[in-house]
Structures are given as structure tokens and as C-alpha cells.
């Protein structure tokens, strides 16, 4: 037996390498190279002098770009806004998804397939299209929604500086709740039925069974969802950039990703954009680590 394993591992290694080469090839070109290149870029700067018409020269500036990014009030402001966004979005979306999934799983639920489909439907709409639809629904003077509210005596401008953040959270909740309901619902399906039956025999109703048995058992799935959501929110870009066409309340540096885009393509400062991107990537890595640590401790407990 032992000999056999060894002999296969010889050819197995080569076969494995063969299968891995395409992956690592693409990974190197599409992932490692750009990251290395961004890192290199982030340590240089294009320096001009005088009126600026005499050409530019590239100079090594060490960590200057990183310092400039952190000193930029718009960048730190964007980070703060993103934190606020997470604070509103994650509880709303995750809470909604858990509630919907538990309702769908309740034995009394009717037309389960239909509701599953309905809940998932918004996610089938591509993000850009969803943002465009909502931009239309938010725009005063165009939107039937705003008009209906006005008819009821409620004056709301969804796109002004106060309400635009919740409005964008709403788009994301609409888009992502259904998707996560499906994940949680699948997790609920794998909860052993005997446990539920035992609980029922012990006199637990639907609500008690949901809270004390089903919910703790789907915690691992829940932590995966939260992890993906946290990483996803750091990449917030599409919705604000579409909404910014409809309102001036969404600034060009509204969230860190927009800041990096603005640095690269409006201010033509690729070096600063590279530094900002590295910072965002590190943040995403740090946050993912924190979430995994936290959730694995929670799952153990």
C-alpha cells in the first residue's frame, strides 16, 4: 500500500503540475504582475517643475504617496463614509436575509419555490442596470415613487447629501438580500430533521425552533456571508458612480475606490492611485482576517 502511494506520487506530482500551470500562469499575469507593478508605481512620482510645460521626470519618493493618501481628507472621509455604509448595510442585509431564509424554511411556509424565485430575482439584474433603475426611481421630477410620496404629503429628496447614503444602501440591500437568502436557505436544508423533530416533541414552536436550533446551526454559513459582504462593500464603486450622474451629492471621491479612480483618471496621478489601491487591498485583507478569526471563535463557542 505504502509503496503504491509513493509510486503514484511521482507521476502525480508531474500531473498536478501540468494541471496547475494554467492556473498559476493566469494568476501570475493577471494578479501577481499587476500587484507588483502597482507596488513599484506607488513608490515613484511624476515630478514637474515651473509652469509644467517642460516635461515630467519620474522620481523615487519612498512612502510619500502613501502619506499623501492618508493626509487627504477626501480619502479618510471616504473611509469613514464606507464604515457608516457597512454599519447600515450589513445589519439590514444580513438581518433581512436571515429572516427571509427562516421564514422560507418554516414548515408552514406556502409556495416556497415561488417566494424563493421572487426573493432571488433582484440579484439576476446586473448591478449597473439596478443602479440605473434606482437612479430613475430616486430622481425628483421623473420618479413615480417621489411623485407618489409627494401626493401623500411627504417631501423627500433621496439624492440630497443627507439621504444619498441610505439610498445607496437600499440599492445594495435590494440587490444582495435574495442572493444570501438562497445561501442561508441551503444551509437550513441541511439542518438534521431529527433534531427539529425532537425539539417539536419537546414542545418548541416554529419561532423557538428557528431561534434556538436553526439559527445556531447556520452560523458557519452566516459567517461566510458576512465575510463576502465585508469584502464586497470595500469594493463599492458601481452604485455610487452611476448615482453620481444623477446627483452632485455623490462626490468623485465618495468612497476609497472612487478616490483611486479619480486619482488615476481625473488627476492623472497613477502613482497615488497605485498607493491608494494597495491600501484598499491591505484593508480588505486585514478585515477578512479579522472576520474569519472572529467567526471561527464564534463557531467554536
Amino acid at each position, binding site marked *: 500500500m505504502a509503496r503504491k502511494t509513493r509510486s503514484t506520487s511521482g507521476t502525480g506530482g508531474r500531473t498536478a*503540475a501540468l494541471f496547475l500551470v494554467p492556473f*498559476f500562469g493566469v494568476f*501570475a*499575469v493577471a494578479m*501577481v*504582475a499587476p500587484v*507588483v*507593478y502597482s507596488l*513599484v508605481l506607488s513608490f515613484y512620482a*511624476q*515630478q*514637474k*517643475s*515651473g*509652469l*509644467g*510645460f*517642460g*516635461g*515630467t521626470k*519620474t522620481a523615487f519618493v519612498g512612502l510619500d504617496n502613501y502619506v*499623501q493618501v492618508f493626509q487627504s481628507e*477626501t480619502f479618510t472621509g471616504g473611509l469613514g463614509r464606507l464604515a457608516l455604509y457597512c454599519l447600515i448595510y450589513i445589519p439590514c442585509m444580513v438581518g433581512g436575509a436571515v429572516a427571509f431564509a427562516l421564514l422560507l424554511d418554516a414548515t408552514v411556509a406556502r409556495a416556497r419555490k415561488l417566494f424563493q424565485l421572487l426573493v432571488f430575482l433582484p440579484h439576476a439584474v446586473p448591478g449597473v442596470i439596478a443602479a440605473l433603475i434606482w*437612479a*430613475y426611481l430616486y*430622481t*425628483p*421630477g*421623473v420618479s413615480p415613487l417621489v411623485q407618489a410620496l409627494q401626493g401623500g404629503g411627504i417631501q423627500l*429628496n433621496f439624492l*440630497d*447629501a*443627507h439621504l444619498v447614503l441610505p439610498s445607496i444602501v437600499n440599492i445594495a440591500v435590494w440587490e444582495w438580500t435574495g442572493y444570501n437568502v438562497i445561501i442561508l436557505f441551503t444551509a437550513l436544508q441541511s439542518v438534521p430533521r431529527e433534531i427539529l423533530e425532537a425539539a417539536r416533541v419537546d414542545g418548541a414552536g416554529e419561532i423557538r425552533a428557528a431561534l434556538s436550533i436553526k439559527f445556531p446551526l447556520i452560523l458557519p454559513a452566516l459567517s461566510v456571508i458576512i465575510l463576502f459582504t465585508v469584502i464586497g462593500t470595500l469594493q463599492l464603486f458601481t452604485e455610487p458612480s452611476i448615482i453620481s*450622474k*444623477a*446627483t*452632485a*451629492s*455623490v*462626490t*468623485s*471621491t465618495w468612497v476609497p475606490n472612487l478616490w483611486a479612480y*479619480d486619482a*488615476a*483618471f*481625473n*488627476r*492623472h*496621478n*497613477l502613482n497615488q492611485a497605485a498607493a491608494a489601491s494597495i491600501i484598499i487591498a491591505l484593508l480588505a485583507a486585514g478585515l477578512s482576517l479579522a472576520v474569519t478569526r472572529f467567526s471561527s471563535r464564534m463557531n467554536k463557542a
Partner: protein
Amino acid sequence: MKRRHVLLGAASLLTSAALLTGCGTGPATTPSAQSGDASGTVTFWSSLAGMDKVAERFNASQDKIKVTFETIPNGGNGGYAKLSTAITAGNGPDVSTVEYAQLPQFVSNGQVVPLDGYIDKASTVDKLSDQVRGLVQFDGKSYGLPYDAAPMIMWYRKDLLDKAGAEVPKTWEEFEAAGKKLKAVSPKSYLASFYPNEPTLMAALSWQAGAKWFSTEGDSWKLGLKDDATKKVSSFWQRMIDEKIVKVEQAFSDEWSADLANGTLGGVLGANWSATGIQKRTEAAGQKGKWIAAEAPNWGTPAGAFYGGSSFNITKSSKNPAAAAKFIAFLATSPEAIAARGNTGSAFLAYPGLTKEARKAFDAGYFGNDIYGVFDKAYATILPGWQWGPNWDVTNTALKDSFGALTTGGKIDAALDSSSDATLSGFKQSGLSVKD
């Protein structure tokens, strides 16, 4: 395992090195003496409507140079991002279309090359008016041939003004009075809009009042976003917003389009090129013949400014600058090029004698007065001496962002202050010399 690791590292290093050198080198562009026998292929990027037909006409008119045209998004929709990235990466077009406000930025980033040596100056740049020439010449070199010279124009719903008993305003004071009369008749309407997403219009308004946002003193820049003329303009528009004579809304947005169609707006502050936009948005609402063009109101003495306008340039990534120059000269100075563009817009052109071609090509029947007559008058009063800075997008973005607060209590004045600071720090960060 270990070897693969090393190989992987080496491969990624090689790729990144290739990327690095790829960005560092561009074709050396040493202007050769102007050659009459330029030939080969030229690529041309523009977001201007009808330019495909112009390129076709050029191809048909001779057989040495073949132009390939590609439509790109306009500046507001990422056109400049695309252009600038492509040039930096070395695969940009030969000929680009860049607006005057953005041109100094492309020049100072070394993304467009001087035309001197490629073009016949006597028959091109030397024939332009000082105001226009100043927008494409930097440090004594020409970096583009101007296409349109777009005078700021105020468009009115004449029927609404008549109903309110107001004359077409000649001064800003009369503009305010007309706005009040309009409000008296229909309280929900506005005489114009203030566009947070169009800082170039704020610049044009300040230019018209005599401001100079960017000027040079020796080898240094001087900023004027807080000068007296700009303050006068900003406090006037602030009052217009506060009195609800002017509505704060994004230009070209659905909201703005709806306000035009349903008659909420009695006017549009724009330029000659606004005609098609107005027609497109109001034709279905039966407003034919109700719109007229007028010179923008002034501060007592006739004065105007450019609001928009583009130039054609040879990019650093061009491999055939001599042929590109020939094509640019055709684009910017040939009546044939204007005629080929067809009925795409009410262009007003910088090169003398071309506007009459544009006038022939454009069907102005939608409008209630002689719009080209108004353009001519507005063009004659453009104040000389305005210059765009080498970093306009920094100022532009800062203004756009701070104007965003106007609907929730923000002030134009504060927006100008913070944008001035942002511009200053942008100048300093890129190493430019600037006087405080």
C-alpha cells in the same frame, strides 16, 4: 515545488519589467521638416458626432493617407481617462480631440506633441483670433488646432418671457428682474439652472466678469479662484439660488430634461452647441419656435466667454505625425470637413470663414430667431487673456464635489474657497511652481 516558486517569481518580475518599460518609452518624435508627401495610416479618436463622415471624406479626397476613425465617450463619460491611459501605454491614437480646458493638462503630462514643424503655421494658427490661439499655445509652441470656438449663449423660452411681461435680459440685473417676473406668473418655474456638474460654466461666467483663474508670472502660476470678479459672480448666483430664480440641478440629467420638457425651466445657460440638446429634449413637448438664443447677460458692458470647444492634437504615441498633421489641418480648416459632418449640431468654428459652412449644414428651423446671428455677436465680445491651468481636472473635480452641497445648505463661495485650496495643493504635489 521550490523551482516552480522561483520560476513563478521570475516570470512575474519579467512581466512587470515589461510593463514598466512599456510605459516608459514612446516613439521619439523629432519634428522633421514639413513634408508634402506624408502618407500611411492615421488613427483618429473623437467623441464629436459626425466625425466618422469627416474621416471618410478625407479618405476619399486623397489616396496617400488612410484615416481610421473610432468614437470614444466624451470627457464627462470617461473619454479623457481612456485617451490618457492609452497614450501613456503607447497605444493611443495619432490624432486626439481635447477640449481647451483639458489641453494644458495633456501638454504638461507630455501626452500631446507640439505641431510646430509639422504644420504650415501661416495658413493655420496665425489666422486665428488671439483669444482662441491663446488656448492652444503654451510656452510659444502650438499643441493643437482649434476646432470650435464656443461662445457662452443664453437660451430662453420666449413665450414664457412674454407671458411674464419680461424683456430678454441684457444685463445680469435685468436677468434677476426677469426671473422675479417669471416667478410672479408661475411660482414653480425657474429662469435657468445652476449645474453642479459643469464647473467650466462657472469658469466661463467668471471669465466673462473679468476673472483670471489661472495666470502666469514668470515661471510661476497664480491662482485667481478667489479674485474679486469671481466673488461678484458667486454672490450673484448664490442670490439667484436663494431667491429660487435658478434651480440647482445636474446638467444633462433626467431631472433637467424633464424640467425642460414640462416648462419648469424658462431658460438654459449654455453655448452654441446647446441647440441640439434643447431641441432633443423639448421637441416632443411641442416647443418648436418657442426657444430663442441670446447673448448671455453681462455686467454692464458687453463681454463674453467661451464655454467649451475642442482642439485636434497629435499624441505622443503617434507613429506617423506628419500624416496626422495633414489630417488635422483638413479637420480644422477645410470647408469640406465641415460640410461632411452634416446636420449634427450648431457648430461655431474657430477658423475664419468656416462658420458659414456649419450654418449651411445645420437646420436651425426649430428656433424662433437667427441663432447664428446671435453667436456672431457673442463671439465678437469674448474677453481676451483667459488661460486654463495645467491641472484643470483637479479644480474641476473639487468644484463639482463641493457644489454637491448646494442643495443642502452649501454655498458657492465656500465651494470656490475649498476648490482653490485643492487646486493649490494639487499644483504643489506635482511640483509646479505657484505663487500664493
